[in-house]
């Protein structure tokens, strides 16, 4: 009977963890480029109440395509397909992200709100506007000069196992051994299309998340009923000996 209680408690804890990760996904529904964490990686509870959680080293994030929204801001870039933008963080490290809400700074670098700079691009001084083609080639229109001026090329990167990337609190992905080799892609064999004036939203599906909340809630309730039944049976057993 004690084991029953332990198994049911482990089941409730698992559903609680599932709810936690759904809450994290829903909280980030408006963060550009946020990658949803998978809620179907619930732990298996052994018959002896041992919790066999899937390997937690991997966060099991889902790298599906998010919705692309037209923003008409020339600084907004989105990746249509697989891969990541390569950015240099303010601390000087290399990080990877799907977020594309860049803005140009005084030195002509494209920076994310946190200050991380996009690799491969430097807009010349006096740039009026610029265009980015699907392959990442950046052409700037500079005041006082006729014709387009090359301003670099945006490289994309991918990994054998993107789920192995480490997501740090700054919202960027960092390379780990689990992610495998970095695969850079040249202009000749593009990995994905880069779309200017678009932003990629988080790949969170609100409806799916709400369905998962309902399922987790009911599964939690079922485990609670087991606790109740075990409790009732223990009470009956204690009633056997009457005083």
């Amino acid at each position, binding site marked *: *009977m004690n*084991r*029953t209680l332990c*198994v*049911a408690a*482990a*089941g409730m804890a*698992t*559903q609680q963890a*599932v709810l936690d990760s759904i809450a994290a996904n829903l909280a980030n529904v408006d963060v550009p480029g946020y990658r949803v964490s998978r809620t*179907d*990686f*619930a*732990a*298996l*509870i*052994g*018959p002896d109440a041992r919790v*066999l959680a*899937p*390997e937690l*080293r*991997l966060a*099991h994030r*889902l790298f*599906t395509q998010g919705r692309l929204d037209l923003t008409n801001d020339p600084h907004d870039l989105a990746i249509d397909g*697989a891969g990541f933008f390569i950015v240099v963080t303010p601390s000087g490290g290399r990080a990877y992200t799907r977020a594309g809400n860049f803005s140009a700074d005084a030195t002509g670098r494209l920076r994310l709100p946190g200050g991380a700079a996009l690799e491969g691009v430097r807009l010349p001084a006096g740039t009026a506007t610029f265009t980015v083609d699907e392959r990442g080639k950046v052409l700037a229109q500079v005041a006082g000069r006729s014709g387009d001026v090359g301003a670099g090329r945006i490289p994309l990167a*991918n990994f*054998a*196992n993107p*789920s*192995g990337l480490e997501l740090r609190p700054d919202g960027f992905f960092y390379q780990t*051994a*689990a*992610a*495998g*080799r970095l*695969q850079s892609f040249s202009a000749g064999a593009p990995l994905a299309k880069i779309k200017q004036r678009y932003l990629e939203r988080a790949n969170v599906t609100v409806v799916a998340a709400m369905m998962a909340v309902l*399922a*987790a809630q*009911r*599964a939690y309730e*079922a*485990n609670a*009923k*087991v606790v109740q*039944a*075990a409790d*009732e*049976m223990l009470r*009956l*057993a204690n*009633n*056997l000996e*009457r005083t």
Partner: protein
Amino acid sequence: MSESDALASAATGMRVQAATLDVIAYNLANSATAGFRPRHAAFTLSNEEARSLFNTSSAQGPLRRTEVPTDLALSGQGYFAVATADGVRYTRDGRFCVDPHGHLSDAQGNPVLGALGPARFPNRARIDDQGRIFAGGKLVDRLRIVTFEKPCSDGQDGLFVAPPGCVPQRAQAHVQAGYLEDSSVDAVAEMAALIAAERAYEANEKSAARTDESLRRLVTDVPVIR
């Protein structure tokens, strides 16, 4: 039947119902675990001794679409083969990912077996319904999907162990890439079984209490009547 026999029977009955609740708790705790197969308990009584038998159900769980190319579900009988430190184990849980070396691995990090060792899964590969892995139009590997003549037994870590003396055979199951097989626990049936176990436990408790009562009468009233 003497009173002490009646007490022993009631105690056995209560023990059986407690064990049944144990199995129900195990099934319900895993009602959201992909690829999980519920267990059912069967009891046989011989000489007041209850012997329990656990059968793992082989009912197909519902398939749920995830659109992740490395999520695989089997429709039909069969198992994926994974290599663990203790040897080859079998599973229906298709929550696979790609490891740093470009091989498929299961949620615990064990390599999933293909035709010759760990199955290769290059970037942007896809898996057809026969379990063949294609990358850029070329056949790279084929997943080992097997079945046995006898049911598999439960091993450690939720994986199945091949029944002794059985050779794995190629299964006819279809592989559905981008889907996961949900737990095949039937919550309604489990809740009904839960109520039945609770009431049966109560009935046994009542019968023990009645036996206790008649034993008490025997001890206190019979000498008085004399």
